[in-house]
């Protein structure tokens, strides 16, 4: 349960598709002029991601990854078809989008009217393929987590496009320098928003503790050799001393930060 909650918030805020990895940037810039259309596209992205990521997870698990074909019999256990993942993922996405479009049109015309025009656009949205590829490279363990990952990444994308659309509606009344109007200012605003979103990075620090500890171990011997105390981190000392001390400065700074 805890890992589900962690993955959920991590995908929405820390690894936000738009602000951390720039996925789906084209539609993000093209369809964010009005809040209503942005909401429509955002909802469609959530929906398609939540469907395709678990589906591609199954494909990856039982068809593509190293040894995935073992369920067919021991003689198939050596196959590694992962080089086919791009083509299979994109085919799944394109067919799913088409299928979803047909089903939605049949059973819910009102939803189709609001989502429908965005669905074909989504087949070539990098956020969708990116979701599946990140699912594969981050080695997500269970089908439930894959669904969770798709859903929460979609929500993160939705929040991002909603926020930029709202800002763009307001900025129309501002006096932006002429060459920056339209595209330029949108890029810069997105950059500033991404810097803002970086502050969420401190929310979950569970996984990051291992790396600095290794550095501490590595530093210890050099300290003994040069016989320096913690005071030795002063800049002036490192400048006049020899190579061993100079190497030490960044490492000991890390120690102090901890």
């Amino acid at each position, binding site marked *: 349960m805890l890992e589900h909650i962690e993955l959920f918030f991590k995908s929405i805020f820390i690894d936000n598709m738009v*602000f*951390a*990895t*720039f*996925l*789906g*940037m*084209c539609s993000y*810039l*093209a369809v964010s002029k009005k809040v209503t259309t942005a909401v429509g596209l955002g909802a469609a992205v959530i929906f398609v991601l939540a469907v395709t990521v678990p589906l591609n997870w199954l494909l990856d698990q039982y068809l593509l990854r190293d040894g995935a074909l073992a369920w067919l019999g021991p003689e198939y256990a050596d196959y590694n078809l992962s*080089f*086919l*993942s*791009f*083509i299979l993922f*994109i*085919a799944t996405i*394109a*067919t799913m989008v088409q299928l979803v479009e047909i089903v939605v049109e049949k059973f819910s015309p009102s939803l189709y009217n609001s989502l429908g025009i965005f669905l*074909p656009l989504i*087949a*070539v*949205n*990098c*956020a*969708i*393929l*990116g979701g599946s*590829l*990140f699912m*594969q*490279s981050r080695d997500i363990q269970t089908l439930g987590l894959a669904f969770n990952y798709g859903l929460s990444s979609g929500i993160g994308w939705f929040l991002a496009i909603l926020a930029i659309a709202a800002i763009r509606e307001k900025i*129309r009344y501002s006096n932006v*320098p*002429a*060459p*920056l*109007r*339209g*595209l*330029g*200012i949108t*890029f*810069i605003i*997105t*950059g*500033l928003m*991404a*810097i803002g979103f*970086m502050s969420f990075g401190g929310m979950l620090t569970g996984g990051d503790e291992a790396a600095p500890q290794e550095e501490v171990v590595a530093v210890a011997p050099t300290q003994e050799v040069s016989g320096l105390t913690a005071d030795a981190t002063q800049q002036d000392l490192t*400048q006049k001393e020899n190579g061993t001390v*100079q*190497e030490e*400065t*960044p490492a000991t700074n890390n120690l102090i930060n901890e």
Partner: protein
Amino acid sequence: MGILSKKDAALILDPLADNNPITIQVLGICSALAITAELEASIVMAVSVLFVMGMGNVVISLMRNIIPSKIRIIVQLVVVATLVIVVDQVLKAFAYELSKTLSVFVGLIITNCIIMGRFEAFALANGPKRSFLDGIGNAAGYGFILVVIGFFRELLGSGTLLGIKVLGDPIEKTGLYAFGYENNGFMLLSPMALIVVGIIIWVQRSRNPALIEEN
């Protein structure tokens, strides 16, 4: 440009400046910005896109009369995906470290909007030679922006270019660092890529007021 007529030359040269895919057509930003923290990765990405676009445009252009228009998107996706698999396997074989850095972004060339955009807008309606030139031109325009961003981010962020310390050694305090210069580590973070693109757009549109948008 002896072999190329004026019109053909324009196919290559236009996307480099006034019809640039990134800053004017707003295509292909998706997979590009995250990998521009280093110049080397930017160059490799630019070359990969150049290959995929040139080849893809030719293939689609050759098949343009036999592709049924209803399923053209999936045909295009299959063509691009095949070419991208080639690029990915070559990178994994000959530049493994780099392919780790680029990670999923090589795969994301498939959904790079420039490629689909050029297939739709150009290759489906023109012959193979012109399509090839168009593909090369647009990929070069894209790659040019990528290299510019990569250049500034690596230079200002870590003081190196292609891994060579051009500004002196930050630890031994040589070169510029002797005067108290510090690297701006902020340039290495992903948000700065967006701001650098914003500035490029600003410079480009100040130089050519015809490109300024309404609104």
